[in-house]
Structure formats: structure tokens, C-alpha cells
């Protein structure tokens, strides 16, 4: 076996992942190319585009040696992978948000709460620290609708800019976590392909540090 198989997340992180791979000198990949092909060969490596939640699955099972995925996905995944590097892009926060006119938005936390979320495991961890009577309702999209329709009292969801929340008249009540893109690796691959996996980690970490320094400057 020569090259690495690397899982990239489809969606909002794909462009950032391709950018970082390019600036790290690892691969020149055009994100648009993944609209036509699900897997792209580059030098000896193979890049596959999969759903973000599937990245840890491919990596844990050894179908890919490495993957790039948001920390928010790892919060929800029980897949055992090595998390090698914070890649410094794809910033977003996991926040508890409630309708502007609700009691909780005014800082009065009720005894019991119905929370709609795409992040049930994170929700359980977040509320475990607070002795509250919480019913978690797992949805797969458009959680902002849940308070409007009376399905839930509030939502626990990812936000990058806060615009979608504001547009739906939701205000942030608490921050449950902050997420960025991460490089993950298969357990055995880290041991048996240490040069290749370690080399990729070093290159991406260095490129991410350069970008963060540029961003700060």
C-alpha cells in the first residue's frame, strides 16, 4: 500500500479543507471537482468526499487512514479515532438558544425543558452538569422551527454567524462548546503508517499555524 486514503467532509468544511491541503503543499484539489466525482486521486493519495458524520466511521473502520472533520461531529460520534490536530478553520459554536420573549432568554431557567437538537449526545452532556428535567428531541434539520411550532422550548444547535438564529427570533442563552475542523487518524494507521500520517499531520498543523498567525496579524 502506498498512499493514504483521506476522508473529506462534504458541505461547509470542504472548501476550507481543500484550501488548507493546498497551502500545506499536500494536494491541489478543486472543491468543485467533488461535485462530479466522489473520489479524487492525487499523487499516490485518494481523497473521498463523504457526509461529515460519516468521516469518523470511514476512519475508525480503516477504510480511510485519515479524515478531516468538525469537532462538532466528533462530539456526537462514539467512533475511536486519534484526533491529531486542530486545523483552525470552520469555526462554529454549539449554543443553547431560545425565543427572544421566553423566560429562559431572560435568564430564568425553568424546572423542565424540551430541547430540539441535531446533537443529542452533546445535549445530554451539557445538561448532565445541570440538574434539570430535560427532554431531548432529536431532529435532523431546521431545528429553529421547533420553538416556533411548539415542538420544543429551545434549541441546542451549531451557529457560525448567529444570523439564522436571529432570523428566527432566537437568542443565545448559553454556549455549550466551540468547534473547529480537526485532523483524525485511524488507530492502526497511526502506528503502521506513522511516516505518512505523521507527515500529513505536521504539514497541516504548520499550515494552520501560519494561517492563524496571518489572521492575527
Amino acid at each position, binding site marked *: 500500500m502506498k498512499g493514504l486514503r483521506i476522508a473529506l467532509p462534504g458541505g461547509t468544511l470542504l472548501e476550507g479543507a481543500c484550501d488548507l491541503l493546498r497551502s500545506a503543499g499536500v494536494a491541489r484539489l478543486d472543491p468543485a471537482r467533488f461535485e462530479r466525482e466522489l473520489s479524487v486521486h492525487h499523487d499516490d493519495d485518494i481523497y473521498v468526499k463523504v457526509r461529515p458524520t460519516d468521516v469518523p466511521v470511514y476512519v475508525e*473502520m480503516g*477504510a480511510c487512514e485519515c479524515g478531516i472533520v468538525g469537532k462538532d461531529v466528533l462530539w456526537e460520534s462514539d467512533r475511536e479515532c486519534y*484526533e491529531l*490536530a486542530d486545523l483552525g478553520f470552520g469555526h462554529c459554536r454549539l449554543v443553547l438558544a431560545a425565543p427572544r420573549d421566553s423566560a429562559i432568554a431572560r435568564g430564568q431557567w425553568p424546572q423542565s425543558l424540551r430541547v430540539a437538537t441535531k446533537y443529542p449526545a452533546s445535549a445530554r452532556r451539557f445538561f448532565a452538569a445541570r440538574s434539570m428535567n430535560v427532554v431531548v428531541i432529536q431532529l435532523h434539520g431546521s431545528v429553529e422551527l421547533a420553538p416556533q411550532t411548539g415542538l420544543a422550548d429551545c434549541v441546542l444547535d451549531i451557529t457560525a454567524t448567529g444570523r439564522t438564529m436571529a432570523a428566527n427570533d432566537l437568542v443565545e442563552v448559553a454556549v455549550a462548546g466551540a468547534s473547529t475542523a480537526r485532523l483524525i487518524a485511524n*488507530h*492502526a494507521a497511526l*502506528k503502521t503508517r506513522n511516516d505518512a500520517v505523521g507527515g500529513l*499531520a505536521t504539514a497541516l498543523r504548520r499550515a494552520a499555524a501560519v494561517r492563524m498567525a496571518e489572521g492575527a496579524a
Partner: protein
Amino acid sequence: MRGPDALPPQAINHGRADGFVDHLVGPAASRRRLTDAFIETFESWGFGFMVTPLIEPLDTIAAGVGGAQQSALFRFMDSDGELLALVGERTVSVARVVATQLREGPFPLRLCYAGPVLRNQPLNAGRRRESLQAGCELLGATGLAADAECIALAAAALERGGVEHIQVDVGHADFIPGLLDSAGLEGGARDEVLAALARRDLVAVESALANTEMADAERRLLLAFPTLRGGREILDTAASGLRGERPQRALRELAELWDLIDAHAITDRVQLDLGAVRDWDYYTGPTFEVFSADSGFALGSGGRYDTLLSRFGSPLPATGFVLHVDRCHDSMVRTGAIHGSPPVLRISWDEHGYTEALALARAARERSLVCACDLLEGGDGDVHVSASGRLSAPQGGTEYPTLDSAVSALASHQQ
């Protein structure tokens, strides 16, 4: 075309529990042969084969394994109300036996086992709920020669089983905790780093260390974690700039262990891995994992666990390992290293030829051929016995004058 509407209203599993698999004829046989190869190797190194129950009291298991493993047990209650569980691993059972029935020795005691283990894995995760483990335990020996023997035996068993391209990673369970302690990391910060390492979250390790007063050399060593691997030379690199007796002792033990592994002539398959992350509550000394370039999972793992037996009232040093038969078998199937069973030869016969056909089958089996006689007359086998007792290839082909020549003809079919 049958559309999605044609899905039955509920899953029909035809009587098999979800998450379990049937091993059908060919793969079941090669899996058993692989297990046999492991056990035969263990026995040839003087490890006595023993069998422990599939079920243990929950208390027994809880004395040995941590919370995460306990929560993945299949549990139930017997008629007396005792909580029982299907075993999720078998070292604890062996430890229980040794601490109770074999506590008088003679030591060192070499034991091996093979059997199913069960884990209540989530459905549809692609993970096995039932898998086969074969392992060895070497009890009552403190010296590193015992650890080296286990590493060499694990490698030997895998190779005898036909598992290719193996790589053994040897680490030390006390190196990282000792490093943290001698660096003055205490309480919450220490636990945070160890927990992050256990989760294999190196990003969290880095941020946890950033908030500590740790010396640069030690911080660099911990952050270089995934790359702290190689031959004996990495021990010198690691030792420079390292304070504290505990991590230094771990490094000295690894150096001695490396020389012993060298004496077993397997250093070409072994790497030292100072960043090895293992269960720190369970392991007390050298640990190892076996990988293959052909599998994304560890094929085997082991290490020294000197405190386990004291939990059963008989303090005894112990070291051992387990091989994951199904993972090994999977990787061999993927690489085409599994050889199928030989085809079953068929002996057909005409009226009155049955007795002769059975005699031919007996003679063939004596030569280790795999054959079966037709149950009804008039078939068309690899060798046919006519009504007059004549032996021939099917459909009046080549005639075989003697039983021996017919057996030889069968043998050529089976090759």
C-alpha cells in the same frame, strides 16, 4: 420493480439476534483453523489450555474491568437474583481461577484459552457483538523475560496462523503517568491530560498542557507523542532532559525488554512506542499491541497487570495478551491469505457397488483425503464404482485396476 413499499412492515431476522452473525461452512472452517494454529503455538510454548465459563457474576467482572467495558456487557439475572454477565474478555476469568484454585502454583504458571466474548455494541455500527479471542496469561513472574516471552509468543502465533506484515508496538503503562507526576502535574490537570490521552484526543492534550507550569522538555516530549516511536535509540532521545525516577525507570525497563526481544530475534517486527495509550488503571508495566498493514484495528494486545490478582485476594504478578481471531481472519480474507477448504470428493456407485465404494472412501480418508459416498446409486462422482465392482472415472472414463490407483486418482482431484 418492487419499490420501497415492498419492505416488510417489520424486520424479519429469521430467528437470529440482531448484531450477530452465522459463520458459514468455508469461513467457519478457516476461522477454526486459525484459532487452532494460535492454540497449538501457545501449547508448544508450554502454555496449558484451559476453559472458563461464558458467564461470570457481574461482581467478578467488575473487579477486573473498568466502567466503559462494564457498561458494554450483556447482563441478566438468574433465578436467585444474582446479576450475571456474558464475558466481554477472558483475562479476568483466568485471574479468578488462578487467585482461587491455582493459588499454590507451581509458578510461573503458563495458561492459554480461546473462546467467544460478547459486547453489547450499538447496532449498525459495523462492530461485532460476539467475537472470538485467544490468549495467554503468564502468572507469578515479575521479570521482564516474562513480558518478552509474551510478545514473542504473540508474534509467533500470528505468523504460524498466516497473518502477514505484523508490527508489534511496545510501550510502558507507567511512562506517561510517571512523566506527568514527576513534572509536578497534579490533581485536575493530571487527570485531564490522562483522560484526553485515553480518548486519543491530542488536541485536548495540547490545550491541557498549555495551561500548566510544565518544563519545556517534558511538554515537548508529551506533544511529540505520536512520533515517539522507533528502535532502542528513541529511549536515549526520550531520557535526555527528563527528570524524575518513575519515567526513567520505565525507560530502563523498556531498554532491558528490548534486549530480551532482541534475544528472541524479533526486533525487525517490533517498535518501541512511548506514546502508547492503554488502560492505565489495569496495566502496570510494559504493554504491547500488534498491528498489520492489512487491518485498521489492533489484531492483538497485552501487557503486565500486577494488581489484578490482588483484587481476588491473591497478589501475584502477571502478564499476558489476547489475539482477536475475527480481526485476524478478516484481514486474511481481505488479502486473500485464507486458503479455502479442499473440495469434497464424491464417490458414486451402481447397484451392489456400495460396499466397495465405502471401502474406497475409507482408504482415501486414511490418506487424509476429504470424501463422501453418494447416498443413492447411479450418481456421477469423481470415482464411480460399477455394479461389478469396477472402479473408473465418471461416465465410463479411465479404469482404475486397484483400490490404490483409484485413491491416487482421487488425490489428484483434491490438489
